[in-house]
């Protein structure tokens, strides 16, 4: 039996290889090494949620009718009897109430979508805070960024398809935002809706985008994303034996085949639990889209909250100053353009360009394959936390009615709090985070120089009490001393030796300023000399004086 099976397997392998030469590929991939860390699974969660989206989505397309033709409901749901609704909404009800497993697939699909977008954002944060976007991975950061935008597009187009009151009002908000765009607004609105809002073509158009364009692009870019991961070989966290020139890990086959393959089923299982037990988007409670009704306390899916929050946050009037401007007869609705176009535009542009911004500040051209511990990049970590807090405040403002209701607060006061917080909190958190990171670096220095506290008190012959410190293990020590210490650079002299003025001075000065912003405050890693001296001094009683010497580490500050 076993021998027969072996013969069959080798026969098949031979057949395929003679026609494709795939053997070389198998040789290359099968034992490729991947470093191990839980945070590397975040991207996997995104990928596997996407697979679940495809699997459940195919089923849904078998029942969903993307049509805005109005019909009268005549199904089992009593509350909807005789109600006029689009075929899109009716088919959603039919799928949920008359197709066995239909509601489950809808809920699995929706939960998978929320998981997908969330995993992408958290994965992106991991890549950001560990510096995994640095050379040679800048382009892959851009691919990932585009995937993030596409996931939002996929989510929003799908959310709108059932044509219920909630999603319809969401589309109306999008229409309002589009109309605010200078010059072209009205025309883009007509182009999208095929005429006046809501028209009769939007759902079919969104459907095509949702099941063909967006997932097609996502699939293609996922392929590019993973190809580049293989090409670059995965990054690794710092530790003994790990350098920018090697990769330390376990082979794709069998360890990661089992772990990552198994993890797909775990993600699938968790999404299935969510879909089985937690109702999501019960459109039969909302009713079909009608431009007149709206209900209070409704929320969009989480990834859109920040735009909704920004729209809420922006005042139409600030005392006597209006935020809709009329200039020479044209109308500029800044109360919409600022929160819904300019702020998200700036936010996403900054994110997309971040690898290059940081590279200007470091001036470093080398390949980076060992990740940073976030504490060892205090400015970046601070920027990351500030960006997240900015996003969170907008998202919270998007739920301000829920928050106000829950905690019995005044809605208006809450909005005013967030209006102030959006200016105050991100810079404050930037500063605080940076200081915490540097504090952790100092703690590392202290550990390296003095070792672990043991709690054992020893009395010397001459009567002095000291606490015994235990030196760090080789691995512990290496982790704490082996990080890059980047110093800010100055702009070159404006005139060279021959007295000729350099070109591009403004750009050079900008980069030097950026470099100072990033690296002026820094904690230097312990040098071998400092370490040797600390070992030498160990056990002596001038610990206090000793401490102050290490303040030198911050000498670079001024």
């Amino acid at each position: 039996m076993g021998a027969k099976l072996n013969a069959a397997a080798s026969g098949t392998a031979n057949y395929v290889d003679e026609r494709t030469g795939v053997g070389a590929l198998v040789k290359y991939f099968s034992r490729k090494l991947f470093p191990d860390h839980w945070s590397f699974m975040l991207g996997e969660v995104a990928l596997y949620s996407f697979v679940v989206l495809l699997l459940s989505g195919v089923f849904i397309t078998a029942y969903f009718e993307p049509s805005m033709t109005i019909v009268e409901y005549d199904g089992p749901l009593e509350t909807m009897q005789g109600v006029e609704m689009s075929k899109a909404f009716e088919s959603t009800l039919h799928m949920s109430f008359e197709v066995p497993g239909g509601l489950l697939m809808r809920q699995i699909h929706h939960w998978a979508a929320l998981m997908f977008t969330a995993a992408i954002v958290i994965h992106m944060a991991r890549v950001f805070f560990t510096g995994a976007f640095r050379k040679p991975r800048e382009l892959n950061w851009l691919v990932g960024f585009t995937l993030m935008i596409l996931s939002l597009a996929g989510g929003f187009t799908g959310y709108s398809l059932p044509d219920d009151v909630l999603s319809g009002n969401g589309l109306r908000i999008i229409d309002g935002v589009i109309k605010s765009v200078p010059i072209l607004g009205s025309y883009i609105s007509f182009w999208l809706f095929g005429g006046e809002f809501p028209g009769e073509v939007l759902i079919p158009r969104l459907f095509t985008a949702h099941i063909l364009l967006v997932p097609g692009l996502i699939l293609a870019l996922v392929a590019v994303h993973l190809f580049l991961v293989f090409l670059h070989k995965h990054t690794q966290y710092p530790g003994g034996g790990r350098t920018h020139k090697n990769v330390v890990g376990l082979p794709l086959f069998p360890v990661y085949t089992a772990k990552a393959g198994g993890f797909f089923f775990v993600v699938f299982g968790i999404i299935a639990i969510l879909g089985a037990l937690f109702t999501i988007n019960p459109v039969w409670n909302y009713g079909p889209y009608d431009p007149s009704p709206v209900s209070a306390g409704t929320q969009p899916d989480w990834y859109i909250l920040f735009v909704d929050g920004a729209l809420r946050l922006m005042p139409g009037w600030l005392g006597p100053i209006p935020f809709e401007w009329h200039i020479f007869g044209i109308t500029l609705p800044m109360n919409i353009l600022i929160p819904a176009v300019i702020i998200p535009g700036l936010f996403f542009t900054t994110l997309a360009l971040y690898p290059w911004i940081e590279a200007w500040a470091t001036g470093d051209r080398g390949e980076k394959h060992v990740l940073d511990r976030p504490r060892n990049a205090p400015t970046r970590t601070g920027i990351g936390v500030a960006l997240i807090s900015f996003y969170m405040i907008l998202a919270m403002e998007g739920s301000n009615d829920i928050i106000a209701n829950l905690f019995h607060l005044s809605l208006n006061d809450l909005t005013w709090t967030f209006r102030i917080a959006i200016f105050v909190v991100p810079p404050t958190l930037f500063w605080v985070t940076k200081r915490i990171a540097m504090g952790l670096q100092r703690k590392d220095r202290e550990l390296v120089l003095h070792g672990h506290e043991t709690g054992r008190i020893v009395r010397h012959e001459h009567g002095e009490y000291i606490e015994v410190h235990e030196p760090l293990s080789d691995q512990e020590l290496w982790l704490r001393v082996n990080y890059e210490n980047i110093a800010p650079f100055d702009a070159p002299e404006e005139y060279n030796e021959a007295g000729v003025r350099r070109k591009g001075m403004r750009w050079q000065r900008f980069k030097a300023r950026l470099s100072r912003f990033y690296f002026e405050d820094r904690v230097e890693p312990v040098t071998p000399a400092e370490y040797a001296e600390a070992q030498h001094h160990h056990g002596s009683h001038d610990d206090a004086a000793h401490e102050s010497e290490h303040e030198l580490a911050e000498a670079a500050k001024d």
Partner: protein
Amino acid sequence: MSLENTTEPGAEQEFQDPGVPFHRPRKADVDPKAADKAERQTAAIFGLSIVGTIVALVGYFGMDMGESVTSIRTFNAVLGLGIALAMLGIGIGAIHWAKTLMRDHEMVEERHEMRSSDEAREGAIQNLKDGVEDSGLAGPKRRTLLKGSMITALAIAPLAFLVPQIASMGGDWNVSKFRHTMWAKGVRLTKDPDGTPIKAADVTIGSAFHVIPDGLNELEHGKIEEKAKAVVLLVRLNPEDLNVQEGREDWSFDGIVAYSKICTHVGCPVALYEQQTHHLLCPCHQSTFDVANGAKVVFGPAKRPLPQLPIEVDDEGYIVAKSDFHEPVGPSFWDRLMGDDSTDDEETSH
């Protein structure tokens, strides 16, 4: 990693990489019994997956999903949890196997710089140069005419394909449609959604009506588009509380005022009326309008007041419109104030 204590401070010396940590054997690596146990555990977990599949199939064929929300939810839960168990069993089993039984010695592989070798680069450049010369674009006789015409053709050819597509997608492109609504002189204000006309006498002080124009429900085409613009909120205030706006003295009737229900911010229905404060609140972004004061903005992101619909009472006592709105309803757009001819005509006619 030992550094000699005798080293002079400041001497050039580097910390040494201690190398990959030693492999710590797991229980199953050293104890065959533990390995056998891990195998049994893995098999049991895979077994759970099989149970899950059975649960899902038995549930699907054996249960009646019924027609009520509750019965469907129960059906959902059994089917979904069966699927979940089937998946989790495979996943957790495979991971348990990998973590306990598969060899876990970390290995090291060298990386190579992404940059291709100088030799390869030179070869690439040479190949391209040769190709360009072969094509005639460079070399002794540069065919610039060829290049220019090709680039121009390539640049504009997409227009032939895209312009008709894009141009067709906007319908009739008549963007001034959203300057007008169904309201006109004499059109009755009727209740949303059934369309019964409203008598002034039925509107008591403090009450609010959601209103659509008479005839909307009979529209064959474009009903939802018209409704999206024409919805109105009708409110009766105590005439003493109503601060009538200048130039609109005859737009209301005995404390009854009608305002567009479409928010001037981004167009949500402004549906929440607070009787005590006379405030209208948009639940989408919380723009708040003061009905007693020309529906001016008192809070939130909107900048403009809600457009007012001029009303009067006809011979039978029903509330009717005196005209269309005097400005476009809903969100702002670039040329909102420029107006088209028809709007101007209407304004002069009243």
